[in-house]
């Protein structure tokens, strides 16, 4: 079952869903619109065996130009998580209509601790993005069965974080 707007709001108040900062005006009928964070890195190598050395930079308030054929890692402005529901993360329709992928294929989160989520950005045409712009939506799903929490390497990070194969 997917949570309705009223149910997301109720569970944020009860503390079983974390969205921080939280703004009720960003609630949609069955999702919450999140913002783009302040930092970004451009992926320099896609070889999982190579160490990561991508420089993380702060985005200019005047916007940052993304080029097609490149992968950029940024993050959610909000700290997001739940130890009760499963979070899925996607782009906003208004962003998809501009040809900007906000998540590549992997939209499913793990039940567990809250953190800023890394976003994988790639574009079809050149596009400008702005820090703190509304960029995506979160949905929350009920689970069935005993809960086991994620304790992998990515929860330790709240900045754009590349592939962590070497640590897992």
């Amino acid at each position, binding site marked *: *079952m*997917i*949570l*309705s*707007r*009223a*149910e*997301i709001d*109720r569970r944020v108040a009860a503390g079983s869903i974390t969205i921080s900062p939280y*703004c009720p*005006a*960003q*609630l*949609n*009928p*069955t*999702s919450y*619109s999140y913002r783009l964070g302040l930092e970004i890195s451009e992926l320099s190598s896609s070889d999982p065996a190579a160490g990561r050395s991508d420089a993380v930079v702060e985005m200019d308030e005047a*916007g940052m*130009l993304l080029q*097609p054929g490149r992968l950029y890692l940024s993050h959610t402005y909000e700290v997001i998580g739940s130890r009760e529901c499963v979070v899925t993360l*996607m*782009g*906003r*329709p*208004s*962003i*998809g*209509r*501009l*040809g*900007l*992928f*906000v*998540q590549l294929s992997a939209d499913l989160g793990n039940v567990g601790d809250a953190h800023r989520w890394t976003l994988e950005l790639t574009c*079809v*045409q*050149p*596009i*400008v*993005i*702005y820090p703190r*712009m*509304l960029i*995506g*939506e979160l*949905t929350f799903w*009920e689970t069935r069965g005993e809960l086991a929490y994620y304790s992998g390497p990515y929860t330790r990070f709240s900045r754009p974080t590349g592939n962590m194969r070497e640590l897992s």
Partner: protein
Amino acid sequence: MILTGPEIIRQHGLGTIRIDPFNVDQVNPNSYNFRLGRTVKVYKNELLDPKVKQPTVSIDIPDDGLVLDSARIYLAHTEEVMGSDRFVPIIHGRSSTARMGLFVHITADLIDIGSYNQWTLQLHAVQPVRIFRGMLIGQVTFWCVEGEISLYSGRYQGAMGPRESESYRDFENPEAEAM
């Protein structure tokens, strides 16, 4: 919980799911196949800025199809008007379109509950692909909701044909309703 094909047929009969036109042959075990409508829009500019309203050009898909260029984003639409006040629709490509490297949506697969439209599809071809109007291009699933339902009343309600991004509205009053 996801609705089965027979449940989609039953809920359509009860009027809680709208799919118009509806064809039982397009029902799958747990989804419904939708068709590509006749009009496609492209942005006039190559460089896109979400803060600025972007001018577009409309193209009618010719009888012999339209070849999509991998360097452009195309806004297409479903032939069907679809929506539900009780179940959440989620859009997917069909395996046969995905196997040609054709994305039918970019990043945003969730349709708001209470939104009734011809849905805008975000077409992106990894390699050049030819599309035809009326082709079966994607599928929709319907999901049950937990909690009290409030319905969509946002910017794309009632859309017919492809609708370009209105992201610039987010920047006009960033604290306002984010729908």
